[in-house]
């Protein structure tokens, strides 16, 4: 492993990404265990926010701006997904 790669991977943002990924796994346990449907929806909504944070951190750790652009698009699309699931819970898809 070259010195440049080592510096990129072991930067402070990569350690932050590991912490956010740990929080994501804890959230994923609630998505799998959740006793009712809205519990799982809350877990998925939290997981979307954590994924956006992790993408921004990885974009800073690897010096790639394209990861942050993908984070913007992911935030908007996951919002649409949450709204569709909420509408389906409320009155069904018609």
């Amino acid at each position, binding site marked *: 492993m070259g010195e440049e790669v080592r510096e990129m991977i072991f930067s402070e943002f990569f350690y932050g990404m590991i912490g956010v990924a740990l929080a994501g796994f804890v959230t994923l346990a609630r998505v799998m265990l959740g006793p009712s449907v809205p519990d799982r929806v*809350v877990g998925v909504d939290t997981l979307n926010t954590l994924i956006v*944070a992790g993408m921004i*951190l990885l*974009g*800073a750790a690897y*010096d790639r*701006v394209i990861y942050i652009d993908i984070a913007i698009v992911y935030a908007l699309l*996951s919002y649409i997904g949450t709204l569709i699931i*909420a509408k389906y819970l409320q009155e069904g898809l018609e």
Partner: protein
Amino acid sequence: MIEIIIYAFLAVSVTFNILGSLSLHRFSDVYTRLHGATKCTTFGTIFVVFAVVLHSIWQLRETNNPKYLQMALHSIVALIALMLTNPTGAHAIAKAAHLSGYKPAKAVIDAYERKIRGEAQ
């Protein structure tokens, strides 16, 4: 000096994200879980973006590479998108959960139920 501030921002963000995900297991109800998880993860992500913006502005001053200006501006756009969509999504989930029949577990007064039935507050 700037590195210490970046470390502090990252520590705050990771702490609040982990606390927000733990609140999903601590609370007992859909609404209390929504309350804990949404607010904590939004606050944590705000500090993630602060750390990235500080880092990229510092790198912009060091190296004069316009890539870092792009990184700072796009992080701010991502933060604005997240801050607009996260509370409205949580509100939609709470309203849908109430209307689909999941009542608050230990609530004494349910004002939204009264409003639906048309009773006086």
